[in-house]
């Protein structure tokens, strides 16, 4: 049988050196200080403000999505009974996109069934003549209480109630059926709905919701002043210390490093988040940083025991910790990366490793020698 790349280079559970942000969420390569800073900030936030509220920035390919999934993995391991982590991509935004777009994503990602189950549970605990009062006391407005009741009760009311909660406009008849006075239009009203759901999750499941919002640089497309103001108002409310049940991590691309989308960098939001919670994922600036990243990656993807056996059996001039590179070819590869510092990003480094591996494999070679790294320069 033909030997494939996985066997040739002793790869664990994969055919190549690529990383899947979701499947490989448990792995993290290099950047140990950043990883530990992130974990500290997240841990501290549960004591200080109840939930993490973090902005991540970094250039294209710096590993923001992988970092978000790593956070999800970390929280899933550390606090499985305390948090419900929801990842989503903010999607394309336009000049006039209102905060209601993000509100809809927040709710849709939880799902109607999930929110309905939460209300059902609340209702079952308060069933009886006091139910109406319990609903009214629990939710901040009569309209939200009525919509939640509609979501839980009657089959015909459930869908329009959900539509109202996500911010869709209902007809006068539907308003009458659900006993609602108006549509939700203001960001403050939408935030009240989201925070009500956060409160339900807290009371019913003793959990908190943490949203991981990717591609937040899309916020820079929101240029209409009213639309931008709706985001600012809503995010300011979510960033407030008294918002203790809904956490978030927004990840946004920042080409030069460090800059946030204009909406997220408004003082009213930044000052609430705090400087420590704005975390930059920069280039792997130093040659040793690049090497550390590659060595970590190889340690996770390559089966060292198999590599050791192979090196011994075939008398290969390699060491298990660098396999399938040799130490010299690894140094040469890292220098190739740093010759143009823009390449010093996880995505470009992983591309480069795969390119070396595929060309060595196709040439029938057992290791990646220095000529492979040199061939990248041509």
């Amino acid at each position, binding site marked *: 049988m033909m030997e494939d790349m996985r066997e040739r280079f002793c790869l664990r559970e994969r055919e190549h050196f690529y990383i899947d942000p979701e499947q490989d969420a448990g792995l993290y390569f290099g950047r140990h200080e950043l990883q530990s800073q992130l974990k500290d900030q997240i841990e501290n936030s549960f004591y200080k403000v109840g939930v993490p509220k973090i902005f991540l920035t970094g250039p294209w390919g710096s590993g923001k999505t992988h970092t978000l999934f790593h956070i999800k993995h970390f929280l899933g391991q550390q606090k499985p009974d305390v948090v419900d982590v929801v990842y989503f991509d903010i999607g394309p935004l336009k000049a006039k996109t209102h905060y209601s777009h993000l509100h809809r994503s927040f709710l849709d990602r939880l799902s109607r069934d999930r929110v309905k189950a939460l209300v059902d549970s609340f209702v079952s605990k308060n069933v009886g003549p006091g139910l109406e009062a319990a609903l009214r006391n629990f939710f901040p407005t009569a309209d939200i209480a009525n919509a939640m009741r509609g979501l839980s009760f009657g089959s015909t009311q459930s869908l329009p109630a959900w539509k109202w909660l996500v911010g869709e406009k209902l007809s006068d008849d539907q308003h009458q059926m659900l006993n609602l006075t108006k549509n939700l239009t203001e960001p403050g009203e939408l935030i009240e709905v989201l925070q009500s759901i956060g409160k339900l999750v807290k009371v019913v499941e003793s959990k908190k919701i943490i949203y991981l919002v990717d591609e937040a640089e899309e916020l820079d497309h929101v240029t209409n002043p009213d639309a931008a103001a709706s985001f600012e108002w809503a995010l300011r409310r979510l960033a407030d210390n008294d918002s203790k049940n809904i956490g978030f991590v927004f990840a946004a691309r920042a080409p*030069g490093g460090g800059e946030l989308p204009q909406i997220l960098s408004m003082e009213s939001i930044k000052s609430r988040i705090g400087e420590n919670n704005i975390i930059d994922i920069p280039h792997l600036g130093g040659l040793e940083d690049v090497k550390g990243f590659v060595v970590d990656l190889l340690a996770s993807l390559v089966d060292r025991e198999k590599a050791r056996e192979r090196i011994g059996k075939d008398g290969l001039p390699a060491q298990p910790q660098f396999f399938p590179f040799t130490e010299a070819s690894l140094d040469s590869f890292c220098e190739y990366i740093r*010759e143009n510092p823009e390449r010093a990003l996880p995505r470009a480094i992983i591309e480069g490793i795969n390119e070396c591996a595929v060309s060595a494999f196709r040439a029938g070679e057992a290791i990646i020698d220095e000529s492979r790294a040199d061939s990248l320069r041509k």
Partner: protein
Amino acid sequence: MTAILYREILAQLVTQRVPEKFLRRVIDGDDTYRSLILVSPWIDPLYDQEYRLEALVKKIEKRNILTYVITREPEERWHKEAVDLLCRCATVEMNFNHLLHAKFFVCESIPHGFALLATSNLTTPGLLGYEVGLLVEGRGGGEPIVNKLRDLCLFTLRAFKETRRVKEIRRIGGSRS
């Protein structure tokens, strides 16, 4: 209570022959050099000085050191000579930025790097005039400062739209020590 760990910063104030402090350390040093960063609006060959630019170029060539230079586009003969001298090395990347005013020099090396943040250019008047610089050791609390200066050049100054790359690193193989 949050514990705050203060790390010692090793730094030295330099007031005489400021840029020479950096040159001397690189030219005479025997560390494993990873990269050099030279950010100076003006550079001259330092012809009559003890540590000349040519000696630095020899070191760069001998050790195959990746070197990133940002300077202004030369108008004077001496500046052009210095730029040409540096561009002779395969491992030098040369960038021009007409708005450049910052002066700093970084050496990324093992066991640890260092950086000189200075008021002076890498020129003879910069050596002889009254200038001041701060030489920071890239260990302890100085490490993030040195790394930040390195990244400021590599990922900020080099990325400015006013920065024009006139020579890239072109190197096939070759080992570095």
